């Protein structure tokens, strides 16, 4: 009798096995790889890039084998709504599978959305446990839906390509966690990698394809986009914030012709705020061990003091790039992307408390001095460039 009661009891609870409610079959799930968010007047446009497992053949193939026929291995679905959750709900209504955000790799914010302010969207994309705060966040010129609809030959999905390009372009690209932290921290403003469409000629002038590229840094003031930095200015800010991924710096060496390129293998940046006569000054100390990647000049590396000249020229170039970037941030955008205010708080909270209410007026006037110290660790496999003749070398 007792055994019978135990068996009945156990069987009863088997009926309540929790796998039933939260059971998700793999062919009932739509894996969302990327989300693009745009603002259209008062509405949010959310574009989702969803993987199509049935279409996933070899990388770069136009289609896969199997019943679903040829075509891309991903699909884009776009809808508008009063909020992002509202737009997702409308998308769900037309999809045969449940949207599943656990594998989302990137979030792309369109230009209009970024200019309107990204604070409202950060909460939505992190409140549900299924969403991961480790997704990369990028901004784009124009609409995010166009950024997600681009060609990729080397990767299966554009989202994967964008993620890998971001990894190559910068060290630890910003994730939702990083964006949320910066928005909540006083004395620092946000920068995001900026995507842009680039037209590239293929073999013939008529064969022009559009690719998505990282064009620079999107600069924010609080949560609103205020501008962008490109080229050397963007690299300068990446160097100053310790975010450049093995940066390559190319420069001219005095008394030589041609350029030298160096790769910064290990570098360290230190921001030192100081207060003198009630004025804040900032010194950026940059130290790097570099590798001579290419010597396109006529400098013979193994002779005289050429190495010291190259180191000084490299240091001057790095200082110039950082100074240019900081000047643009201070004068043009008034955006404290370096986190000078935050650095001041970490070093001396009492001083920060004194200045923080006037930080917007003080920040553009802060003199910034950059001290770069470059040490050439390796010169490559050549001591002298192969091109110039012996008599043409600069020593």
């Amino acid at each position, binding site marked *: 009798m007792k055994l019978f009661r135990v068996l009945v009891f156990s069987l009863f*609870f088997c009926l*309540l*096995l*929790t796998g*039933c*409610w*939260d059971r998700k079959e793999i062919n009932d799930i739509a894996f969302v790889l990327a989300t693009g968010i745009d603002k259209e007047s008062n509405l949010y446009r959310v574009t989702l890039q969803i993987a199509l497992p049935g279409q996933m053949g070899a990388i770069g193939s136009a289609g896969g084998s199997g019943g679903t026929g040829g075509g891309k291995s991903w699909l884009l679905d776009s809808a508008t709504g009063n909020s992002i959750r509202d737009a997702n709900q409308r998308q769900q209504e037309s999809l045969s599978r449940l949207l599943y955000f656990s594998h989302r790799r990137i979030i792309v914010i369109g230009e209009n959305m970024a200019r309107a302010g990204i604070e409202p969207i950060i909460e939505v994309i992190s409140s549900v*446990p*299924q969403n*991961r*705060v*480790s997704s990369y966040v990028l901004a784009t010129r124009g609409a995010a839906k166009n950024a997600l609809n681009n060609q990729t030959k080397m990767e299966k999905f554009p989202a994967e390509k964008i993620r890998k390009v971001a990894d190559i372009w910068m060290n*630890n690209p910003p994730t939702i*966690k990083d964006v*949320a*932290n910066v928005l*909540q*921290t006083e004395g620092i403003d946000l920068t995001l990698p900026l995507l842009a469409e680039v037209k590239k000629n293929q073999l013939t002038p008529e064969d022009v394809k559009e690719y998505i590229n990282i064009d620079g840094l999107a600069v924010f003031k609080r949560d609103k986009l205020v501008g962008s930095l490109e080229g050397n200015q963007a690299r300068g800010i990446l160097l100053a914030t310790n975010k450049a991924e093995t940066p390559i710096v190319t420069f001219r060496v005095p008394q030589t012709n041609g350029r030298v390129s160096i790769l910064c293998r290990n570098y360290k940046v230190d921001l030192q705020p100081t207060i003198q006569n009630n004025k804040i000054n900032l010194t950026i100390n940059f130290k790097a061990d570099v590798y001579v990647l290419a010597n396109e000049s006529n400098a013979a590396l193994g002779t005289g003091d050429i190495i010291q000249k190259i180191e000084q020229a490299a240091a001057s170039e790095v200082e110039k790039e950082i100074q240019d970037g900081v000047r643009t941030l201070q004068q043009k955008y008034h955006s404290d992307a370096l986190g000078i205010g*935050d650095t001041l*708080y*970490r*070093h*001396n*909270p009492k001083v920060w408390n004194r200045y923080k209410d006037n930080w917007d007026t003080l920040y553009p006037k802060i003199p910034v001095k950059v001290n770069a110290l470059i040490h050439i660790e390796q010169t490559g496999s050549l001591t002298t460039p192969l091109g110039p003749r012996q008599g043409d070398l600069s020593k």
Partner: protein
Amino acid sequence: MAKLSNYQLILMGTNFFTTVFIISLPSQIIATSRQDAWLSYLPAFLIMVIPLWMLSKVMHRFPDQDLFSVLKSRFPIVGSMLTSFYLLFFFFILIRDFRMFIDFISVALLQRTPLTVIGGLVILTCILSARSGVQVVARMHELFYPLLMLITVILPFLFYAGTDIRWMQPVLAQGVKPVLHGSWLAVSYIGEIIILPFIVSNRTFQLKQGLISLLIGAYMLEMLVVLNLLVLSPNLASRMMYPNYELAREVRVTEFLDRFDSILVTFWLPALFQKISLMLNVICHGIKQMMPGVQERSLSTSLGILAFVCGFWFFENPLQLLNLNGGWPAVALIFEILLPLCFYFMLKPRFHR
């Protein structure tokens, strides 16, 4: 009288105050103490050494008895009243832990499953475990808890690239008051270690076991809160319901080691089951001390079902559990510090001429 080894007692002691502590409380401590949250734990641990010492002295005066028996035998009427109060205290902790546990499962793991179903299965497992006796629960601790401890040892190495020391600076910028506020929140949870003398006699429970449990627990909790600060930052960790779970989701060692939260949960949930089972077992043991005719095994079932009902009756939603943490130390410290102090001065063997 339960016969447990020193090792089992140490594991049980550590489990008792760590596994539920790390669910939500770090978020509240970080919200008050910010970057100094790691300092908040230290006063709480130091304070709890005192009642442990006092209780070990009391147990030394009454060999071969656990604290329930000591209270009953030394002061039959007052002792029974104190035992009842302690049983109500432990029962409330059981309800709180049970509800916190099932809320965590519901929010983080099984969003669509009804809360009552999750609760029913959890309490059934704990009832079956408690019915087997404290020695079975102790052996379960030996199986699962060291693996959870191992995770806290290897976790720092998995975050070697993802930490930022800025988030712990500047130290004591807001003064000592927020740190002490954080200690206030932490002390009641850490003080639950005083359950040890209620389980075993002085032959097993010595001050040494209590201190080792406190030390291991201190390491685990400090390591987790420091990682929360360095990886998530005070801004994020203070706004999350389950910061340690989110911390585990941040582990990424290239593309190889992802979804570490699954591994953490695999070892953490059994430890939570064990705590609730142990608590149920201790309450049944205490009731049996007061009413010797009662069967412990059937008590577990009734008490488990009562805890299940009270878990839903007392708390409407997880936020009420968080709000409880603010005022709960005022009640808990009576049982964790004040009463042990009284026992130290008043619980002495009768003088026989």
